[in-house]
C-alpha cells in the first residue's frame, strides 16, 4: 500500500502541469467566492456604501421579496415546470439522439439542422406565434403551456448533448441485450439508461438551468399562477421602479439557492463521473 501511495505523491510532486491546473481551479473558485460572497453579504446587509462589510445585518430583504412575489407559490411552480421539462425532454430526446447516433440515413443532415434551429434561433422570433398556438389550444396560461414552450429548446438540447454519449457505447452491449430477449424499451431502461446516466444527468442539469432561467418563453405562456422564479427575478432587476439593491440580491440568492438544492439533490443521486469504467480505474 505504502509504495502505491508514494508513487502517487511522487507523480504529483513531479508535474508542474498538475499544479498549474489546481492553481487555476483555486483562482477560479476564489473569484467565484468573491462574486457570490459579495451578493450574499449584501443581501443580508442593512446598508453598504463602502468598506469591507455592510454597516449592519438584517434578513428583512428576504421577507419583503418573499411576500412581494409570493415566492412560496412561485418556487413550487418553478419546480414543477423544471422537473416536467427535464423528464419529458429526456424521454423524447434520448431515443431521437439514439437514432441519430446509431444510424446514417438519407436526410439526416436536414433533420439535424431542424433540431439545431430551436437552439440557434432566439425566442424573439418564434415566441409569440408559439404562444399563440398554445393559447389557441387552451394550453397556455397555465402550467402546461409553460412546460410545452420550454420543451421547444430543451428537446433539441438533449438530442445534441446525448448523441456523443450514445456513440461512446459499444453497440455489442445492446446486441447482447437483444439476444437476451430485451425489446427496445427495455434496452433503453435497463441497458442504455444506466450506462447513459452521466450523460443524462449532465443534460438534465443543463436543461434545468436553462429552463429555470428561460425568461421569454415562460413569460409569454405563463398565467398569473404559473409564473416561474425567473419572471419574478427579471422583473425585480429590470422592471421600471425603485427597489432596494439588497432586495434584488436577496432574490438572486433565493434563485441560486433553489437551483443549488436541485443540483445537489441531482448530484447526490448520481455522480457525473461515477461510472462503470470507474471499476476499471483501479486506483
Amino acid at each position, binding site marked *: 500500500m505504502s509504495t502505491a501511495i508514494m508513487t502517487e505523491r511522487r507523480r504529483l510532486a513531479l508535474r508542474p502541469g498538475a499544479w498549474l491546473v489546481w492553481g487555476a481551479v483555486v483562482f477560479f473558485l476564489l473569484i467565484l467566492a468573491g462574486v457570490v460572497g459579495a451578493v450574499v453579504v449584501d443581501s443580508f446587509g*442593512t*446598508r453598504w*456604501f*463602502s468598506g469591507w462589510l455592510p454597516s449592519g445585518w438584517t434578513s428583512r430583504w428576504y421577507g419583503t421579496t418573499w411576500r412581494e*412575489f409570493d415566492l412560496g407559490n412561485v418556487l413550487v411552480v418553478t419546480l414543477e415546470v423544471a422537473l416536467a421539462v427535464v423528464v419529458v425532454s429526456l424521454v423524447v430526446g434520448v431515443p431521437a439522439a439514439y437514432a441519430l447516433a446509431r444510424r446514417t440515413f438519407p436526410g439526416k443532415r436536414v433533420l439535424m439542422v431542424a433540431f439545431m434551429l430551436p437552439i440557434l434561433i432566439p425566442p424573439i422570433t418564434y*415566441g*409569440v*406565434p408559439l*404562444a*399563440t*398556438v*398554445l*393559447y*389557441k389550444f*387552451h394550453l*397556455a*396560461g397555465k402550467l402546461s403551456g409553460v412546460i410545452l414552450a420550454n420543451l421547444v429548446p430543451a428537446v433539441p438540447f438533449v438530442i445534441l448533448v446525448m448523441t456523443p454519449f450514445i456513440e461512446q457505447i459499444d453497440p455489442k452491449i445492446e446486441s447482447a441485450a437483444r439476444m437476451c430477449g430485451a425489446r427496445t424499451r427495455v434496452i433503453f431502461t435497463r441497458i442504455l439508461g444506466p450506462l447513459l446516466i452521466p450523460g443524462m444527468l449532465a443534460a438534465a442539469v443543463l436543461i434545468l438551468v436553462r429552463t429555470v432561467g428561460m*425568461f*421569454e418563453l415562460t*413569460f*409569454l*405562456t405563463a*398565467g*398569473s*399562477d404559473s*409564473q416561474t422564479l425567473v*419572471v*419574478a427575478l*427579471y*422583473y*425585480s*432587476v*429590470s*422592471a*421600471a*421602479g*425603485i*427597489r*432596494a*439593491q439588497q432586495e*434584488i440580491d436577496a432574490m438572486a440568492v433565493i434563485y441560486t439557492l433553489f437551483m443549488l438544492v436541485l443540483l445537489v439533490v441531482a448530484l447526490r443521486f448520481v455522480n457525473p463521473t461515477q461510472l462503470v469504467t470507474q471499476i476499471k480505474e483501479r486506483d
Partner: protein
Amino acid sequence: GGGAKDLTPANVPDSPKNPVTLNIIDVAGNLQLTKGMIDEFVKSHPKVIKKVTYTNATAPELPGKIKAQQSAGQVQIGLVLTGTDALSAGIDQNLWVKTDDYASRLGNPNYQAPAQKMQELAEGHGVEVVYYPSGPLIEYNPKTVSKPPATAEELLAWAKAHPKKFQYARPANSGPGRTFLMGLPYILGDSNPKDPKAGWSKTWSYLQELTKYVDYYPSKTSETMSNLANGSADIIATTTGWDINPRALGQVPAGDKVAYLKGMHWVTDAQYAVVPRGVSADVLSADLQLIKWMLTPQQQAKAYDDGYFYPGPAVNGVTVQMAPQKSQQVIQQFGRPEYDQWIPKFPTETSLPAKEQVAAFDQWDRTVGSGKVKK
C-alpha cells in the same frame, strides 16, 4: 389583434353579471402605489371582483404576450398597469380597449393640469392613475461637492475638472437617465425639444462633450445610486422619486442633496391603467369600476407611498395629510421641502412620445454611448 372580439359600450353591463376574477399585470412597478387601492376595492366590492391576482412583469415583452392571447382569442389579462412605453406600444398595435368610449362610466377625473397633459398621451386608450413631475435633477454628495453646478455649463466644467465623477445611467434602461436626456433640450434651449432628430443639436453636442469626462454609463439607475453612495461618483442624474425613495431605503446616504440646472423644465411622467382588447364584458365592467375608484382623492392619497413617485397623485386636491400614516412619516423624514416650491415654479412638459423616445435612445446609443467619441 385578429381574434379579439370588440365590445361596445352597449353590451358592457354596468356591473358584472357574476363577480370576476381579475388578473392584473403590472409592468411599471405601479402596484407599489396602487395595490392598496385595489385591495380595498376588492374588499368593499365582492360582488364585482371576487378575486384578484397580481403579476409583475417587464414592459417590453408585454405586448407580445397580449398579442399572442388576442390572436388566439384567449385574453386572460384583465388589467394592465403600465408606464408610457408599453402604453404607446399597445396603442400602436391596437391592443387596448378605447377607454374613452366609456368616459361616462369613469366620471370626470379631476386631473392636475400637467397630469391632464399626460393623460392625452393615452390617446383615449388608457387612464392615467398616478403622476409625478420627475426631473431632471442632479443629486450630489455634499461632502465632496461643496457648490453644486447651477447651469449646464457649470456641470460640464465640473465634470471636466472631476473626470469620471459625474454619472447618469443609460437612458434606455433608466428613468433618471432618460429624464436627464429629455430635459436637456429645455435647459440648453434647443430648437425643438420634441424632435430629437432634428431639434436637439445643442443637446447632442453637449452630451458628446460631456461624455469625454464620463467613465461609463451604468445600465441601471440603482448602480448610479450605489456609486454615489460609495464615493465613486459625486454627482448623478435623478428625479424626485429616485431622490426620496432610495434614501428612505438606505441605498443612498440620507444627507445627499439635490439641485436643478438653470432653465429647468419638469419632464413629467405618469402611469396608466389599460384594458386589453378581448376581455369579457364582465371583466371590462369590473375594470371600469375599479379605475373610477382609484381616481378618487382618498385612494389617490395612497400614491404618496414612500416617495417612490413623489408626489404621486394624478388628481387635484390630494394632500400628504390624506396619505397613510407610514407614508407621511417617510415623506416627513426624507422628503424635501424645496420640492413644494420647485414643482409649481418650473414649467412642466410631457415626456416625449414613445416613438421619439426610442429614436432619442437610439441616437444616444450611437453617438454618445457607443464610445465613438474619443475620450
